[in-house]
């Protein structure tokens, strides 16, 4: 049998205010690079990265959305197919943190009910300009029962960890179509490592 390029395809989505660093977070993860020039994303873009989790090759198709209001009608139509959504704010921008509730409402309105959510406080390398304490991010994540990381695309902090954790969370609740020996540890590992009580 010819070897296939991947076992599973996960569709992820990055949302959050304009300028919080969604594209940079994705660029760091997909190309392990960082660019300081700010180019606003036009509407919607995507990148592909294949990772290996629990012996499975998982192709991550990661959709990067424009944070600007004028693109919202375009970007919200991409929520539906997402299995995981990363909501990004900027720890040096209080407004981007205040808008989290607005983004969470967008998820409720446009995404699948069982979508896996994650909150990222980006630019954590800029501690001297921080206006959002880490505790506030942790608190709002706890209130909504979602995972939280402080990240830095620039300093490469927690980027890979965040994506892999989100992929793992999706993998954990992915139904196994053709059970075989490889799949056993996926289903059995389900409730053990996850701290979330939310049922899929």
């Amino acid at each position, binding site marked *: *049998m010819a*070897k296939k*390029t991947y076992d*599973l395809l996960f569709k992820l989505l990055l949302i959050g205010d304009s300028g919080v660093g969604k594209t940079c977070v994705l660029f760091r993860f997909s190309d392990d690079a960082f660019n300081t020039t700010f180019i606003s994303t*036009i509407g919607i873009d995507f990148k592909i990265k294949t990772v290996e989790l629990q012996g499975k090759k998982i192709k991550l198709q990661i959709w990067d959305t424009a944070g600007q209001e004028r693109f919202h009608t*375009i970007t919200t139509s991409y929520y*539906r197919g997402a299995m995981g959504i990363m909501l990004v704010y900027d720890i040096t921008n209080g407004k981007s943190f205040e808008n989290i509730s607005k983004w969470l409402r967008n998820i409720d309105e446009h995404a*699948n009910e069982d979508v896996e959510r994650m909150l990222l406080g980006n630019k954590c390398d800029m501690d001297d300009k921080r206006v959002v304490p880490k505790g506030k991010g942790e608190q709002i994540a706890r209130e909504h029962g979602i995972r939280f990381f402080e990240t830095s695309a620039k300093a490469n902090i927690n980027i890979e960890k965040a994506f892999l954790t989100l992929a793992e969370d999706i993998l954990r609740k992915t139904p196994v*179509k053709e059970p075989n020996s490889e799949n056993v540890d996926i289903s059995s590992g389900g409730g053990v490592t996850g701290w979330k009580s939310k049922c899929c």
Partner: protein
Amino acid sequence: MEEPPLREEEEEGDEEEEEEEEGEEAGPEGALGKSPFQLTAEDVYDISYVMGRELMALGSDPRVTQLQFKIVRVLEMLETLVNEGNLTVEELRMERDSLRKEVEGLRREGPAAGREVNLGPDKMVVDLTDPNRPRFTLQELRDVLQERNKLKSQLFVAQEELQCYKSGLIPPREGPRGRREKDAVVARARNASKNKEEKTIIRKLFFFRSGKQT
């Protein structure tokens, strides 16, 4: 002095240029005949001169000396009030002139600005000479983005396939497509299992767009 102040104020606006000459013509005594609103510091000094002269003529009665101190004080107060009043008038005059210029400027731009105001709350004016003016619709942008992303995903698939050939994973004579399709499991495709065999990888990638997967 007995003239009602209101009328004076109204007149002042139109006759501001003449007022100073009037005082000069009448000599020191003339200052006493002026309207209080047109009084200058010079007029106050004229009044001081006139009153001082008359007090001197009364002789050196101690009561006169007493009164003289009070009169000097009152005249000093008057001087301060007149100076301050004139400064205020000057400031107001400058402000009025700049506002007049502003109004004239706005009147010259008139028609264009007027139209903008009449457009209503949710309208905007497009400058047809601006090379960066908005000119494409949301649907056009949506279509272009969709096509861009489709081509991008096709490129990724082609790159992967090429990689497979290069690394010798797929023998060139074996058609890789049909086989890979069957093997690749799209997560959550539980509802779509019937059609699975017919779907290309691109279609699977773009299942995301169509949003039928609930």
